[in-house]
């Protein structure tokens, strides 16, 4: 189990401080494949790098399963002295988008590297490295240099290297983002296989929802450094509860053929009457039909709060009629959406 407690990260920058993470708390169960998704710049990499302390959180705690002090209490990774932190890191492997292999070492020697660091004897390390080459399906690449491999093969070697230290946790930061779809799938299969056979907890950072759907069991959504939603993949993907979640899960929004060419408006309910009657009365009073493209509204005691996206009809005069009708409603604000993505 990985427990992140109230993690905040502030980067000092040339023009003041930048808060990349704000009070993120997250529990990742042992043996899980956990996805962390979010738009570019949401703070995914920063968050995952806080797990092995490549990035030191400004505040908050990182608790790793099995990492206990003498009295059997979980210790905060951030509180460990450097030598112990280095030892703890051997149990947390990481793979990267850019593979980050040692270019001047053969594949076999790359895989031996973590064992070399841990003081494993050379003969033992090489034997283990050959096993791992088999595991990742590249037994014939022992003496090849990384420059002689394809992207997918490089990532396989990186995975073998990550497994060499017998980690309990595998962190994947956009591990498939530099690969084509077929290769991506095969790498995901490999990661899933490793998770199942070795019981390694996997944390997958990605901006591709397909990756999450394919292998993850749980998912957390980050937006602007806040964790806005978390749960099982089924729950979050079938019914994203937040705007950020919807934007990620349905990036295209509704199907293109449903997209009204005339335009989209967002209406916000500020506690007036419920929203169904509004749409119904729009049809009755003006004879105009609109499409509900999406809604995030709650009825609280018969009053509506939240926002709704409406597709206006193609006909310009009908659209104008609908607009003026909506604008006339009290407790409702209307704005046109020009860059509608869903």
């Amino acid at each position, binding site marked *: 189990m990985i427990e992140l407690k109230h993690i905040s990260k502030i980067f000092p920058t040339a023009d003041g401080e930048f808060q990349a993470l704000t009070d993120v708390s997250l529990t990742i169960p042992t043996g899980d494949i956990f996805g962390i998704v979010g738009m570019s710049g949401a703070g995914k990499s920063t968050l995952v790098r806080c797990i*092995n302390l*490549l990035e030191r959180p400004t505040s908050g705690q990182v608790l790793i399963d099995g990492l206990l002090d003498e009295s059997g209490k979980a210790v905060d990774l951030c509180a460990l002295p450097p*030598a112990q932190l*280095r*030892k*703890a*890191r*051997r149990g*947390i*492997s*990481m793979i*990267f988008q*850019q593979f*980050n*292999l*040692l*270019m*001047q*070492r*053969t594949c076999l020697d790359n895989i031996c*590297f*973590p064992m*070399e*660091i*841990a003081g494993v004897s050379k003969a033992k390390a090489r034997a283990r490295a050959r096993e791992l080459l088999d595991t990742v399906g590249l037994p014939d690449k022992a003496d090849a*240099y990384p*420059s*002689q491999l394809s992207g997918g093969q490089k990532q396989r070697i990186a995975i073998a290297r990550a497994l060499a*230290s017998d980690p309990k946790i595998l962190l994947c930061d956009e591990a498939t983002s530099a690969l084509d779809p077929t290769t991506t799938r095969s790498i995901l299969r490999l990661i899933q296989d490793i998770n199942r056979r070795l019981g390694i907890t996997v944390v997958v950072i990605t901006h591709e929802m397909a990756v999450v759907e394919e292998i993850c069991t749980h998912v957390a959504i980050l937006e602007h450094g806040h964790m806005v939603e978390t749960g099982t993949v089924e729950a979050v993907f079938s019914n994203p509860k937040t705007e950020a979640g919807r934007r990620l899960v349905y990036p295209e929004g509704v199907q293109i053929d449903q997209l009204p060419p005339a335009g989209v408006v967002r209406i916000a309910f500020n506690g007036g009457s419920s929203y169904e009657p509004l749409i119904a009365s729009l049809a009755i009073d003006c004879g105009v039909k609109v499409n509900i493209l999406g809604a995030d509204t709650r009825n609280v005691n018969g009053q509506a709060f939240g926002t709704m996206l409406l597709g206006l009809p193609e006909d310009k005069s009908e659209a104008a009629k609908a607009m003026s009708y909506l604008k006339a409603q009290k407790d409702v604000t209307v704005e046109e959406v020009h860059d509608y993505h869903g």
Partner: protein
Amino acid sequence: MDKFFTQMSEAFSNPALWEEFRTGIWDTLYSTVVATAAACVLGLILGVLLVAGERDGVRPLPAPVMKVLNFVINILRSVPFLILMLMVLPLSKLLVGTKIGTIASIPPLVIAAAPFVARLVEASLREVDKGVIEAAQAMGCSPFQIIWKVILPESLPSLVAGFTTAFITILSYGAMAGAIGGGGLGKIAINYGYNKYNYAVMLIAVVLIVILVQIFQSLGTWISIRSDHRLTGKSGRSRRKKEISSRIDREKKTPGVM
């Protein structure tokens, strides 16, 4: 002109002179190799400190230490070599017991070249991919392991190119040291060309220096390329060869300030 040709034919038929050239070549090589080796060791240590010790390096050092380090390197690099040599000769006397000859020129060469090598090393080490260093950190490497097992091996081809630059620079500075008591081919060139107006002998000495430079530049380029496993195929290697040659040509110094 006639005089030049008679000098030339005399030079070729004078065995004593050839003997002098032979020891000249030997002295030049010997002092250059020793001075380069020492300067590279010192420069490597300084270069590692410069890169590892900076604020976001793998083993940050206190800011004042880095300031002093940079300051000393910059100062040493801006003293003209001949003046530095005159200043350091007393040290030569202390270290090797003499102020003249090939061996006496080694300490000033080392002191002049080490800061120069340090900057070359610094540039080479900075070429190492940050991501690879990060991966090593994530695996639990200590700062020393990162320097020794990641940064230095990964930058080896570039370091070799830098050492080659250092070698040919030191060779040409060593020749200049001939003017103030150094030995080797430089001394022969100055002795004959400047003191005896024997331009033929001077020309031969200069040609020999140029040939030595070319041989070592080619050798260094070859080793650098051979040791670089990022290169695949013939075209990659020949492209890299051009890059390294032009880099060495750009970075090597002709006598003046290193």
